[in-house]
């Protein structure tokens, strides 16, 4: 009788332990699935996606992360310097062919919408050899050459990599964030979009679009 009770207790204990393990496994899988699903809802960029230009970013609706970067001429520029302005942050690089296609549109659009308080800040993601003064000077010279060739009139800030994380580490170019006059990101675009898409986003930033 006593032996049967022990057997029964052990069996119940083992079954209980297995049940807890099963429950824990299920809970864990559920949480991992939820975490992955949340991650996937971010602006996860797929290399061969043809629709990047229409993707969104978790930054939309939030305050644009502030930063201070340096222009080619050595001037420090912070996003807060543009308080009260609608701003397009354009992430680009000299090696980026689609960036070169959209740049003339950006120049035209900035000219068109500057009376409404719109400005563009170009942010270069070209590599900078910060540990080697000679190579760094060469890198800056290459960027300056690219700016000159594209006739970019707006400020171009260096070392975009240093702010990449705050802006979602998308690592694809061109990428633009459209920031309204209160400093909130109202739209984002990834990849080459049409001029009219860019204009729609600019209109959102200046408070005219939907």
């Amino acid at each position: 009788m006593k032996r049967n009770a022990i057997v029964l207790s052990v069996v119940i204990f083992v079954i209980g332990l297995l049940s807890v393990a099963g429950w824990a496994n299920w809970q864990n899988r559920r949480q991992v699935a939820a975490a992955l699903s949340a991650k996937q809802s971010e602006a996860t960029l797929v290399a061969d996606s043809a629709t990047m230009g229409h993707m969104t970013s978790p930054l939309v609706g939030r305050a644009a992360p502030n930063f201070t970067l340096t222009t080619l001429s050595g001037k420090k520029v912070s996003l807060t310097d543009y308080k009260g302005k609608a701003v397009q942050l354009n992430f680009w690089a000299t090696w980026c062919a689609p960036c070169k296609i959209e740049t003339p549109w950006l120049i035209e659009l900035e000219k068109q919408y500057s009376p409404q308080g719109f400005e563009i800040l170009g942010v270069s993601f070209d590599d900078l050899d910060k540990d080697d003064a000679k190579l760094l000077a060469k890198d800056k010279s290459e960027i300056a050459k690219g700016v000159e060739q594209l006739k970019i009139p707006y400020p171009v800030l260096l070392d975009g990599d240093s702010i990449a994380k705050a802006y979602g580490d998308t690592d694809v170019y061109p990428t633009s964030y459209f920031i309204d006059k209160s400093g909130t990101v109202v739209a984002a675009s990834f990849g080459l979009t049409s001029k009219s898409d860019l204009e729609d986003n600019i209109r959102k930033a200046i408070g005219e679009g939907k």
Partner: protein
Amino acid sequence: MNFFAALPVLLGLAFAAQSAQSPFGNLDAKPAKKPAAVSYLFPEQVTVAADKPVALDLHFKVGDGLHVNSHQPHGEGLVPTTLSLPDQNGVRLAKVTFPPGTDFAFPIDPKEKLSVYTGEFVVHAQLVAAKGDHLLQATLRYQACNSNTCMPPHEIPVAIDVIAK
């Protein structure tokens, strides 16, 4: 079977099941690392004549929907595909010949033609190896884009076991 004899096994199974998946499991499961846009296919190992120039075809594959600039891209500032081999004892890259690129234009600007590689491409290398076994550790550098977006320049290792006899 005696129950008490099987008891340690049962308990062991129960504890193994419990510890295999902790309720505080790895919630920080990292998403899979992004695959490289270009992968090195083969060869992994070659046997060559020692101290003589030997031709070697290196096969690469560009991911679906992507392209990389050819070795001679059209347009200034674009990053060409290159193969480099750091100085290493016993193996020397005597010559590298890249295939010509094919024309590619972004749909939104069909007039602007780029020279690119897509799908599989083969780089013809000529190397000279001293007698012995050498692990050739070359690097392919490229810059990839899809139909409307570009990714930063990237490097992948090209490792080949060279047996020179």
